[in-house]
């Protein structure tokens, strides 16, 4: 199906929504700003609803379904490794201790990104068919 007028209109609604929401945020101290923020977020939500409605008309893409649990696990490891780094900064005051905790956290994040997520992405890859 590819690009259509419906896509164009939905994207226009999205851009209007994000502009109104940002304007509302910029003037959120005033009453009208708050109204604009809520209206903008509602318009963005509506645009996403329209996107979801037109998605099936695109046609089937050449990709297999990626297991959500595995993707979530990879994400959690990526984020968790970063949190280990931040925690380590406060638990270990010395240079050596902070180096160790930083490298450990980095390793956890990289494991999630370079091992778990590619496994999830390729589990049902189209080229395996």
């Amino acid at each position: 199906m590819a690009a259509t007028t419906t896509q164009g209109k939905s994207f226009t609604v999205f851009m209007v929504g994000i502009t109104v929401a940002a304007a509302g945020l910029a003037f959120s101290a005033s009453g009208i700003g708050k109204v604009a923020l809520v209206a903008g977020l509602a318009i963005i939500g509506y645009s996403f609803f329209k996107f979801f409605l037109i998605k099936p008309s695109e046609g089937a893409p050449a990709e297999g379904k990626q297991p959500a649990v595995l993707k979530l696990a990879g994400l959690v490891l990526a984020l968790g490794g970063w949190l280990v780094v931040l925690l380590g900064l406060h638990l270990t005051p010395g240079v050596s201790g902070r180096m160790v905790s930083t490298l450990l956290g980095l390793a956890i994040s990289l494991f999630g990104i370079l091992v778990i997520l590619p496994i999830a992405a390729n589990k049902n890859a189209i080229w395996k068919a």
Partner: protein
Amino acid sequence: MRNSRFALCICAMTVVLLAGARVVAHADPAPSATASELKDAAAKAPTTATLQAGDPGGTATGTISDVPVGDAKAGLTLGDVANQVGQNKIGVNFTWTLVCGFLVMFMQAGFAMVEAGLCRVKNANHTYMMNFFVYGCGLFAYWILGFAIQMGGAAGNGNLGGLQPLASEHTLSLFGKTWGLFGQSGMFLSGHTYDVGVMVIFLFQMVFMDTALTIVTGACAERWKFLTFSVSSVLMGALTYPLFANWAWGGGWLSQLGTNLGLGHGYADFAGSGVVHAVGGLSALAVALIIGPRIGKYNRDGSPNAIIGHDISAVLIGCFILAFGWFGFNPGSTLGASGAGCLRIGSVAVNTMLAGCTGTFGALLYMWSLKGKPDASMSGNGLLAGLVAITAPSGFVNPTASAIIGFIAGVLVCVSVSFVENTLKVDDPVGAISVHGAGGLWGVISVGLFADGTSNYGGAWNGVNGSVTGLFYGDASQLIAQLIGVSTLVGFVFAFTFAMNWVLDIVLGHRVSAESEIAGLDLPEMGQLGYPEFVFAPEPEYLMAAKKVALAS
């Protein structure tokens, strides 16, 4: 009688003397030497009659007469001259920063040519259009929201007049320290941020932001739905990039690692190996993982097929355009050419050139020695990898270190491309993940290793006195600060981008249909072929087989 007459004379003389002294005390003070010098110089300035005769040598143009006088009655004063000196300093810095920003903006053309050249001809229009429209998407998102998040609390830059309107940073108090999170001043560049200095920093930072956004289009080329690319780019320009950029450059917590925890000078990233390139490269990895490989990229046994680009001349010319634009990227990051160590712009420019050169050598020699040919596209990627890697350390290292950093980046990009393609099984048509992701992270780490402590940008960096110094010159804590930056890029920025695009995949879908992909995205997505008069050559055998499988499933 005689005595009283004498006394009377003495009294009279005393009175006269006292009266005279009072007159002298109340008289106007004699003009100071400076004021009289200024008056003399003003008197000697060329007259209108002299200037009307023409000034071919330029010796009569630009004199004391051109200094604005604050009070016409008082005439030219030292204060007037000092004010003009201040204006000149800021004017020079504004001009330098803006011209460098214009150069970086032109890099969009370079990216477009490199990416389109590495894609097949049936996707040329779509690839060029992604690089064209990402400029608009990013700029608009940055104007309405992103700039405020990134720079809303960045006041205090003396090079650009202080940027005092940008004085609103949201902070968090944790473990007895205050940490910056994101700014708020500057949305729509309205109100008090409608300021000459703010305009300059907005333009300069915006073109950096757009570089990060355009990187993602390369990794997802030939199968990314134009609608989803547009929405994803707007969100990246509004949220993802500005958030990390605030933490590094906008007074946020990464830059405060030095002042708060004594870790070197905090996360130091002179021109954006991390902020721009690693953000772009890791975002590219996130979306490429979600979107999947192109039809025919991998065989059933997992071995990859080379899908050749259609125009190597565009690739290499695009690389030169990028290298040219990089002279704005790195030297421009001094944000001035006058004061506060800005004369180091020459060193920064030379460092940039050298790293690009040795990056090319690293990649070319690797490919030639191990694969048998001096591969053109990898040589171009080697140049870019060297430039990406030197971006962070360019203001802190010497030429020798620059050459080493660039060479390692050139070799690294070849290893990384193979790793991403063969081990991760992630399809990246242009090598964006390796050039910008791997190269960018290497650049961030190299600051912590090679910064030599000779730079002096106003006596401090990130609020810590002294020069940025790496491990090889005696400061291991700087390396830790850099590694924390790497961890934030890998752990937070990647995760944030992945999560955001995962939602977009559920709602919009990132990938075009199999039919559109096989036909080429130019007609279904853009309605027009990139080269309508070309006769397309038949595609290789392995692609024909893969198409049948894709359509059947």
